[in-house]
């Protein structure tokens, strides 16, 4: 036993036990990070402005990031690349919008429940069809379902085409906890409600991926045939994880609708939104639980705000992503340990920095040389 509460020794490692998560624990360093993250999350609306960031934009980033956490269940464990998760994000958002605009549901939490039901139902239906597919077929099938949904909404008067639906009931924003709020009050209550629910969802996901079920999903991802022949009902489990994954997206989309109060197809349902959710997971570090969340915050911030900073804002976003691919090979969160080691190494021996630059330059030069030779061969043939 340790002197500190919740701290224990397990297999020679000090771990910190988190309430509600029997059998799981964090290393002391992870605990510090988690604690800082929590403080950051709760103080965000007050801190963001101090450093010149828009907390509502960060909030949207968190929402897309949460959808990416859902997607990551498939990506990291069953090793399936979904190109269609906007279907659930957008499905959730439209669940809220339709209930508010057409059925006058005015309580935000009920709307959110509706969002989760709509989005998850979509996941159940689409999951049923795609669960038996792997690799790029899986990716492109989810993409096709996503696009059919997008096209339907885009061209349907019920959804007011691409002009979208207001999440307002007779011009008023929904109530939260059956109370009416001021603009700021509404956003804050929505934010803190979301954060609390999100933490529960993250804990649940953590629990899930460390459970025998999570193991079974890993098994399916690593060797589908073997998984089947140790008695795992592969399609059923993929279907189930697809549904859970969709649920996260649906929830996030629902909150997004409540925050933005207007839902249009392009920012929620378009296939490139699916792509963005996927890229958030990868760039944040898909081998980690919270990486996708960080990825969401960063990508949304870039996509929305870069246009205010530079004229060539696509390129800026692209260059940031390139840098992450090459210099943070496991995504941002996944690469933190390596990155720390690298920095420490260079601080100790600054001379090696030159070496790094030299080798990078050499690699680029070699690449260009090869390209030139190849083009010459294509154009002039082999001598």
């Amino acid at each position, binding site marked *: 036993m340790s002197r500190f509460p919740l701290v224990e020794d397990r297999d020679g490692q000090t771990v910190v036990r988190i309430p509600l998560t*029997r059998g799981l624990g964090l290393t002391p360093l992870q605990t510090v990070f988690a604690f800082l993250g929590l403080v950051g999350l709760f103080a965000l609306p007050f801190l963001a402005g101090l450093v010149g960031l828009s907390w509502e934009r960060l909030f949207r980033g968190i929402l897309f990031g949460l959808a990416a956490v859902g997607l990551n269940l498939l990506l990291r464990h069953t090793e399936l690349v979904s190109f269609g998760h906007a279907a659930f994000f957008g499905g959730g958002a439209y669940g809220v919008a339709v209930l508010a605009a057409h059925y006058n549901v005015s309580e935000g939490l009920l709307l959110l429940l509706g969002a989760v039901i709509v989005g998850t139902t979509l996941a159940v239906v689409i999951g049923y069809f795609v669960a038996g597919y792997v690799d790029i077929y899986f990716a492109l099938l989810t993409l096709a379902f996503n696009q059919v949904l997008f096209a339907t909404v885009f061209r349907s008067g019920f959804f007011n085409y691409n002009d979208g639906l207001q999440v307002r009931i007779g011009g008023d924003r929904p109530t939260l906890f059956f109370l009416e709020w001021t603009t700021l009050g509404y956003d804050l209550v929505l934010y803190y409600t979301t954060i609390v629910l999100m933490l529960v969802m993250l804990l649940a996901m953590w629990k899930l991926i*460390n459970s*025998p079920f999570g193991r*079974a999903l*890993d098994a399916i991802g690593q*060797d589908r045939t*073997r998984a089947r*022949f140790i008695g795992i009902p592969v399609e059923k489990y993929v279907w189930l994880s697809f549904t859970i994954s969709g649920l996260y997206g649906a929830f996030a989309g629902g909150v997004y609708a409540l925050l933005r109060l207007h839902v249009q197809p392009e920012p929620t349902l378009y296939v490139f939104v699916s792509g963005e959710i996927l890229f958030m997971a990868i760039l944040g570090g898909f081998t980690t639980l919270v990486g996708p969340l960080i990825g969401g915050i960063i990508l949304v911030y870039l996509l929305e705000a870069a246009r205010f900073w530079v004229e060539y804002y696509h390129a800026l976003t692209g260059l940031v992503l390139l840098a992450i691919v090459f210099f943070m090979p496991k995504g941002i969160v996944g690469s933190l340990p390596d990155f720390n080691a690298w920095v420490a190494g260079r601080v100790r021996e600054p001379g090696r920095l030159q070496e790094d630059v030299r080798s990078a330059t050499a690699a680029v030069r070699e690449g260009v040389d090869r390209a030139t030779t190849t083009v010459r061969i294509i154009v002039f043939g082999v001598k």
Partner: protein
Amino acid sequence: MLEARELRKEFGELRATDDVSVRFGKTEGERVFIVGPNGAGKTTLVNLLTGLLEPDRGEVVVHREQNGSTVERDITEMAPEKRVKAGLVRSFQIVHVFEEMTVRENVRTAALSRHEKTLSMRSRDDGHGDVERDVDDLLADFRLEGIEGEIAETLPHGDRKLLDVAMSFALDPEYLLLDEPTSGVATQEKEYVIETIVEASEAESVTTVTIEHDMDLVKEYADRLVVLHDGQVFREGDPDLLETDPDLRRVLLGVDE
């Protein structure tokens, strides 16, 4: 008893199994070896029995003693994962293990499945004591305890083969179909692999059906022999046939008449 009834499977023009009828596990814990030249339909037969392939015609039937009488159960349409639950387990010629997991996690994943715990949401280390006991036993039986923390893809080939089989045993099989458990294993280790399997199956009285090319091993360990040739059962019977039947020798050596 596991029975193939007139199983037929065609790949385009090729009839890989041509109405094969054969029974395994006539006695409890019977060791049957399937032999035959390449392309005889051995792997296809195992695939049909375990549900990896669907037959074009014919049936797969399990016979079970129940209240003193034998009950037949047609499992031709049954999904592979359900056959596993029904006691029909296999390994593969090319090793199929979960490459990114440790040895222990591989065996544990199989054991969790056997204990119907793959849907459990409890944390891995938490409250699965019976599973862990099984895993410990199996690791010991297959002499994998020393390397239980190693990642599967880093293991030498022989250990991977053993791990593959250990996972199969973790499923508590009644019938275990092994597709060339010694393929790729160095000659001096083959004996060791087969010996380990035999020990484990005798302890649990598992009926094993093994595809094997090494006739010395077959002679040494087989209770019964099934010879496939051109998709048909060419001979069936005592391993002594290998010595006594000249046609059999010709077929196995691949010398066609």
